[in-house]
């Protein structure tokens, strides 16, 4: 299991977002087609809903940054909004769009509960330019886990993360970066369990992930809930006709 080890840098600790919930984006007539992979629909949606928002970000970021979205190039039917949003960012904010970094595993986070999201970690593939500064772009962020994985992938390969732009930020806590005192308490309470169960260094948890895990009082309670969530994931994916990949089975990583 690949370990997520890099926290969000301070420069990307607080994303830029347009809405707090996904109601407005879901009401757009092109939403369903865009979410199902329709590129023309995604272009229509992004230009309709995000143009003024992105113009308002002019001056927030230096020119010539690289805008990158978590998207699965090979998977037809995968959400087309993030890549079209990244393209719009590059055009309006005068940067480049990265299309070679791709999400190489589907995680089915839509409708998943917090523990399931922690267990179902996306993987990324593709060339990162060492020294290049990237802005991460997504349509919706909830706990920030997918963006955290992309940030970790880029930083591990020598790139840096200059910011985050998302249309919808539904997280209870709006920053992506967790507070240090919270991380310290989690390390004390669960010395190894977070890394063993999720493959995430506590310091690399997002604010909402760390807040969620703070609700567990003991290692046993955390592991029991993770085990139950793993079963629920299995059932949910089987119902969709998928099998859980071995790497996502968290309990095989317990010491």
């Amino acid at each position, binding site marked *: 299991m690949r370990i997520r080890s890099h926290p969000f840098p301070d420069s990307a600790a*607080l994303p830029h*977002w347009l809405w707090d919930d996904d109601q407005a984006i879901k009401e757009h007539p092109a939403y369903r087609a865009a979410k199902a992979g329709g590129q023309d629909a995604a272009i229509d949606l992004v230009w309709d809903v995000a143009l003024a928002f992105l113009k*308002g970000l002019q001056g927030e970021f230096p020119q010539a940054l690289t805008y990158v979205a978590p998207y699965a190039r090979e998977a037809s039917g995968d959400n087309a909004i993030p890549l079209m949003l990244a393209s719009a960012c590059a055009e309006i904010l005068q940067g480049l769009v990265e299309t070679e970094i791709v999400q190489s595993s589907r995680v089915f986070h839509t409708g998943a509960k917090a523990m399931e999201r922690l267990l179902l970690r996306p993987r990324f593939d593709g060339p990162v330019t060492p020294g290049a500064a990237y802005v991460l772009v997504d349509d919706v962020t909830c706990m920030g886990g997918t963006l955290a994985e992309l940030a970790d992938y880029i930083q591990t390969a020598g790139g840096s993360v200059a910011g985050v732009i998302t249309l919808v930020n539904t997280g*209870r*806590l*709006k*920053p992506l970066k*967790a507070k240090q005192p919270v991380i310290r308490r989690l390390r004390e309470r669960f010395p190894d369990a977070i890394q063993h169960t999720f493959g995430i260094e506590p310091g690399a948890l997002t*604010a909402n992930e760390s807040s969620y895990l703070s609700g567990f009082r003991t290692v046993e309670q955390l592991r029991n809930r993770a085990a139950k969530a793993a079963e629920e994931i299995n059932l949910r994916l089987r119902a969709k006709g998928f099998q859980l990949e071995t790497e996502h089975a968290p309990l095989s990583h317990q010491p």
Partner: protein
Amino acid sequence: MADFLVLFSDPVGAGYRMVQALTAQHAADVMKLLNPEALVSVVPAEQLTVLDRHQLVADWIRLTQD
């Protein structure tokens, strides 16, 4: 009843919620009931069209958590 954006800062982090309340103080009281440990600040919803929420939260974090 009116809509208020109630910023909070508690031991795990910062954010806000939209609250329907009679007055700003009422909105703050609702948030304190939900989250007794939080520091709170209230912004009337009608002001939000001219406010950038990112900047609002950034300023709030600087005030309460740095």
